[in-house]
């Protein structure tokens, strides 16, 4: 659906996007994660034809987006990170305006707008002036606007940024709906955990480059070739550590208060052997768990922030 090859964007001498490659298949929800200034918005604007690329190729649904950007605009729904609204329009007039831009027939317009307002939960605000909506509502309205021409590819630039937790949850629910509707979505954020649960794939971008990309579980494996286990004991911490050290597949043991963390490079049977050993030697084990690597840790590890840790 979306294919980016060797994309470069220079602002003067500064490389905002530096040889970026990306591929998103139909129906995928691709999380575009990176710290502020990584080049997410720049990349998205280039895809939408709002910014010229310095070099590289972008194709949307098989169409060369850089050369024929008027042909791909129908296919893309874009929601910018920062946007404004017309202060003197009502909610349904606002959507009506964009609907008429896309030449949606008068007969279908009413229904399309109603359906969209329903989808973003703004049905009750139809007659309110756009300017009087809360930030979260404006954000949802802008999302509805980006959907008005029923695009197959959605490009959402930090749709949850600046929202309070409640509004974030609402936004997430809507995105889940869109996912079920079969839209292909490219969504960005500078917070990885925000995207992890809802995305099928993730690409981490830093300094204009994709550092790592793949399905969520692929990324986890790539970063943690070994699993992590976490053991909480009520007592006898040192004794437990000694026992653990007897196993060759356990390494890098770290301890906290009544807490042990260790790298673990074995199968499920090995895991039960460890637990068995601890229990038979009367260690009061409170919890024994395998950790899914923390996504934020992954993020920090692959972007610059991780190097300092």
């Amino acid at each position, binding site marked *: 659906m979306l294919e980016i090859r060797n994309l470069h964007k220079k602002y003067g001498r500064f490389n905002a996007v530096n040889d970026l490659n990306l591929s998103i298949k139909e129906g995928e929800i691709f999380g575009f994660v990176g710290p502020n200034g990584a080049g997410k918005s720049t990349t998205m*604007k280039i895809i939408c*034809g709002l910014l010229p690329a310095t070099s590289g190729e972008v194709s949307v649904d098989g169409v060369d987006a850089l050369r024929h950007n008027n042909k791909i*605009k129908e296919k893309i729904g874009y929601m910018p990170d920062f946007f*404004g609204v*017309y*202060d003197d329009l009502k909610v349904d007039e606002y959507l009506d305006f964009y609907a*008429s*831009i896309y030449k949606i027939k008068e007969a279908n317009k009413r229904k399309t707008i109603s359906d969209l307002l329903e989808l973003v939960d703004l049905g009750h605000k139809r007659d309110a002036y756009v300017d009087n909506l809360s930030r979260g509502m404006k954000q949802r309205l*802008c999302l509805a606007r980006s959907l008005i021409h029923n695009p197959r590819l959605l490009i959402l630039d930090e749709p949850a940024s600046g929202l309070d937790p409640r509004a974030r949850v609402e936004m997430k629910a809507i995105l889940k709906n869109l996912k079920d509707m079969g839209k292909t979505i490219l969504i960005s954020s500078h917070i990885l955990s925000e995207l992890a649960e809802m995305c099928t794939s993730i690409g981490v971008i830093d300094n204009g480059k994709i550092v790592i990309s793949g399905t969520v579980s692929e990324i986890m494996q790539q970063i943690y070739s070994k699993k992590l286990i976490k053991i909480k004991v009520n007592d006898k911490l040192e004794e437990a550590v000694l026992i653990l050290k007897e196993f060759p597949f356990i390494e890098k043991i770290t301890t906290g208060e009544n807490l042990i963390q260790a790298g673990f490079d074995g199968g499920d049977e090995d895991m039960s052997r460890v637990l068995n050993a601890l229990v038979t030697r009367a260690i009061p084990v409170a919890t024994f768990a395998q950790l899914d690597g923390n996504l934020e840790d992954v993020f920090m590890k692959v972007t610059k922030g991780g190097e300092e840790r």
Partner: protein
Amino acid sequence: MIINPVLLKEIKVKMRSWKAVGIIGGYLFVLAAVALFITYANSVDMYSSTINPQFSIGAYTGIAVIQFILILFIAPALTAGAVAGERERQTLDLLLCTNLAPRSIVIGKLLASMSHILILIIASVPMFSIVFLYGGISIVEISQLFGFYIVTAIMAGSIGIFFSTYVKRTIAATVLTYALGIFMCFGTIFIAVFYLRIFYNFDYQNYFPLFYINPLAGFSSLLTEQFGGQYGGILNMIPGLYMVNNGATKGMAPWLINTYVNIAISVIMLFLAAMKINPVRGSLFSFLKKR
């Protein structure tokens, strides 16, 4: 044909606001005040049934001049913020990412402002019809006048749109538009005076070419042609501002050439504006191809 959606939206919004009512009201007030002043100045009995062409030509000229000046003032103000305002409000990208062609955005913005001017002109029709009733003015003259108004407004509006796309802030675009307007209206006169004095010593028997971009010159030429030289007197002190009746110009009347030049300026300005707001504009050639 589908009506330009930008135009449609702007009209809806503008006509709803009190600002529009205020502008039309204020505008009519100024025109009416001028008409009354002329009436008293001519000490004409408005209720007498005698036909008085002298009065009607005076009133016509007065209203026409004031209205022209008002239009020259208002047209740039309406358009200078058209695109820069969208940029400031962060709504421009939302327009540009749709399949709306850049030229549609530019033309929609211009037409929206022009519809405003058109309303002002239409609002003044009753006043002209009173003048009309006194005789001496024909429908042809009023049509020429309104035509010249509209073309001048489009020209001034296009310059506003042009600066609105090339400059980021509305304020800067407005200042630049008026600056260029002042140059066209008065700068050209200064150049004409100095140039003709030095090289021709006032002996220049033609319409100075720079005046083809001067709306005031074109307008004077129009009024002079309509009513003979009687209002050309003071203007003839400006060298190079020769009206059709002076017999110095052959062929087309200067105001008609001004009209064509205005149209050409508008087309060029709008073309450049549309090219500028297209974020991924390629060469001039690729832009032509897209049209």
